[in-house]
C-alpha cells in the first residue's frame, strides 16, 4: 500500500482522528465522486480497523465495488469482515401525497439503520473510527420530495452520532444546484458544520486530457498546539486515473 501522506489531498486534509465532517462539492462538468472513493479507500486501509457505513443514493453496489477493486480495495471482503456496510437507497421513496409524516418516516428509518450499525460496530473490540459516507445529499432531497428541512433534520440527527461515537462524515453534494435564495440554507448549513470543504471544479479552459480539473480544499483546521485555529485554503490540479488520482500544483506536472 502506498504512503498515507503521499499526495496533496492527504496533506491538505490532514490526518484524521475521527469526529470530522468533510463536505465534497462538485458540479455538472466535473464529478467529485473520486474524492469520495479516495476517502472510502483510506478508511478501509488494512492496517487499521476503521469501518465505513456507506449510504448510496446515486449508484448501486456493483459500481463502487468495481471502482474500489481497481484501487486495490475489495469491498465484498470488507463487508464480510464487518468493516463496510452498504445501504442501498437507490429506490428509497418517501411516499408523497400522504402528508409530511411519511416523508419523515423514510428518513427516520434510514437514521435508525445507521444508528444501529454504528452501535454494533462501536461495540466490537478495538479502537475504530466509523466513517459515515453519503452519496449524495441532493438525492436525499429528491427522495424527500424537496423538503430540505427534513433533510437538514436527518443530517443533524446523523451529526449527533459524532458526539456520541466519534463518527466521521464524508458527504457529497452538488454546488451548482444551490444558486437561488430559497435553496441556499441547506448548503450553507452543511458548509458551516463542515471541518473540511473540498470543491471539485473543471478548469476554466475546459476539460483537458492531462489535467482534469481543480480541487480547492478549505481546511478549517483543528485547534493547533498554540491555541489558535488556522484555516487553510489549498488549490491544486488533479488527474483521475482508474487506480489512483494524481494531485499536483498547477504547472508542476512532468
Amino acid at each position: 500500500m502506498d504512503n498515507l501522506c503521499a499526495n496533496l489531498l492527504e496533506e491538505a486534509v490532514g490526518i484524521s482522528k475521527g469526529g470530522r465532517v468533510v463536505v465534497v462539492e462538485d458540479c455538472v462538468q466535473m464529478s467529485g465522486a473520486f474524492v469520495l472513493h479516495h476517502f472510502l479507500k483510506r478508511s478501509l486501509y488494512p492496517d487499521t480497523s476503521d469501518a465505513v457505513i456507506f449510504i448510496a443514493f446515486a449508484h448501486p453496489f456493483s459500481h463502487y465495488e468495481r471502482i474500489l477493486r481497481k484501487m486495490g480495495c475489495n469491498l465484498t471482503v470488507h463487508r464480510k469482515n464487518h468493516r463496510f456496510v452498504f445501504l442501498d437507497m437507490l429506490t428509497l421513496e418517501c411516499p408523497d401525497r400522504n402528508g409530511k409524516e411519511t416523508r419523515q418516516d423514510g428518513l427516520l428509518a434510514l437514521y435508525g439503520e445507521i444508528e444501529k450499525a454504528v452501535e454494533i460496530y462501536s461495540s466490537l473490540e478495538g479502537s475504530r473510527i466509523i466513517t459515515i459516507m453519503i452519496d449524495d445529499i441532493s438525492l436525499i432531497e429528491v427522495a424527500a420530495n424537496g423538503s430540505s428541512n427534513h433533510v437538514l433534520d436527518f443530517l443533524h440527527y446523523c451529526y449527533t452520532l459524532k458526539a456520541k461515537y466519534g463518527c466521521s462524515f464524508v458527504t457529497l453534494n452538488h454546488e451548482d444546484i444551490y444558486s437561488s435564495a430559497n435553496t441556499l440554507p441547506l448548503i450553507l448549513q452543511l458548509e458551516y458544520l463542515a471541518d473540511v470543504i473540498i470543491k471539485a471544479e473543471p478548469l476554466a479552459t475546459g476539460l483537458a486530457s492531462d489535467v482534469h480539473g481543480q480541487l480547492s480544499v478549505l481546511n478549517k483546521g483543528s485547534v493547533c498546539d498554540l491555541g489558535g485555529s488556522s484555516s487553510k485554503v489549498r488549490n491544486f490540479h488533479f488527474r483521475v486515473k482508474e487506480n489512483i488520482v494524481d494531485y499536483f500544483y498547477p504547472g508542476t506536472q512532468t
Partner: protein
Amino acid sequence: MASSRPRGGSFSRNISSAATAQIPGVKVGPNGTSFLSSGIPDLDQILGGGFTLGSLVMIMEDPEAPHHMLLLRNFMSQGLIHKQPLLYASPERDPRGFLGTLPSPMASKEEKSHERPAEQDANLRIAWQYKKYFGEQNSEVQRGGKAEYCNDFDLRKPLERHFYSGQRVDCISLRDSPNLAPLLERCSTFSAQISKSDGNITCAGRIAIQSLCSPQCDFSDKDWEMLSFIRSLKGMVRSSGAVAVISFPPSLVSPTFLKRWQHLADTLISVKAIPDEDKELAKLLTGYQDMLGLLSVHKVARINTQVPAILEATTFSMKLRKRRALVLECLNQAPVDGSSGSSYGTSGSCSGSSKSGNLDF
C-alpha cells in the same frame, strides 16, 4: 490487496462478453458495461461505443427546432430493428402515430455508394481537416465489422410496418394523466419484463420519453414530482438492461432544477438549431450551409469507473448527407485569419497544447 477473486478487476471483460454476446444489438464495452447503439453511427463513435446499458440519457431540446426528434427517431428505429422492446411516451394525443414517422435503415448498397465520395474527397482536403477523416475511416472499419450493431437510417423513408406492429412496443400519452404515476408504473412493468429471467439480462430495452416537462402535461409545474420520477426511472433502468432517453425543453425548467436534472443524467446531450442567416457564423465555419444544427455532449455516462471521459471536441455539427442520413461532424473553423491555431476551436486550450504535435502545420 486482499482479493477473493483474483480474476476480477480489469480482467473481467472476457467473462461479461461471453454473457452478453448473444444479445442482438448490444456491444460489450469497458468496465463490464455494454452499449446500445444510438442509431447514429457518428454519435456512437463520439460516445465511445453508444449509450451505456443501464444509463439515463437526457437531451436538452432547442425551443425553436425539433432536432431532438431526429435523435429520438433514430434511437427508437434502431431498437425496433434489433427487435428490442420499446416504450415511448409523448405529450401528443396519439403517440402510436409517431411510430409511422420513424426512419427506415438504408440498403447496404446505398450505404456503400455514399461512403465512396467521402473517401475520394479525403485525398483532396487540406491539412486542417485531416483529423476528421482519420476518425471517419476508423468508424468505417468498425461499421464493416459490426454491420448490424448500428444502421444508417434514411430519414425520408418510413420504417416498414411489421417492425413496430409487434406486441413489444408500448406507447403512452403524457397528456391524459394528472401526475406521473401511470408513466412510472408502465416504466417499472417494462423494466421488470426485461430483467425477468433470474437477474440475467436477456434482452435490451429502450425507453424514449419525449418532452417530459412540456406545458401540455398537467404535471409540468410539479418540479419535485418530475425529479423524483427521473430518479426512480434511473434506478429502474440501472437494475435492468435498458436505456432511457428523455428529451426536455430546458427553458421550461427553473435554473436550479435544471442543474438537478443535469446531475441526474448519465449522458447529457443538447441540440441547438442554427439561425438561417447568421453571416458571422457562416464566415467562421466551413460547410455552414449544410448544417442542420449543433449537437453538444456535456456528459458521458461513467458507470463502474471514476475516470472522466475527455472528448476531443464537445460540439458537433449535425448534417444531412444526401438529404437522408444524419451525420455528425467536428466543427471546422474556416481559415479566416490564419492565427486561429488548431481547427478544434471547441477543445480547450490545454488539450490543444498537448496535441500540438498532430496539428502542426
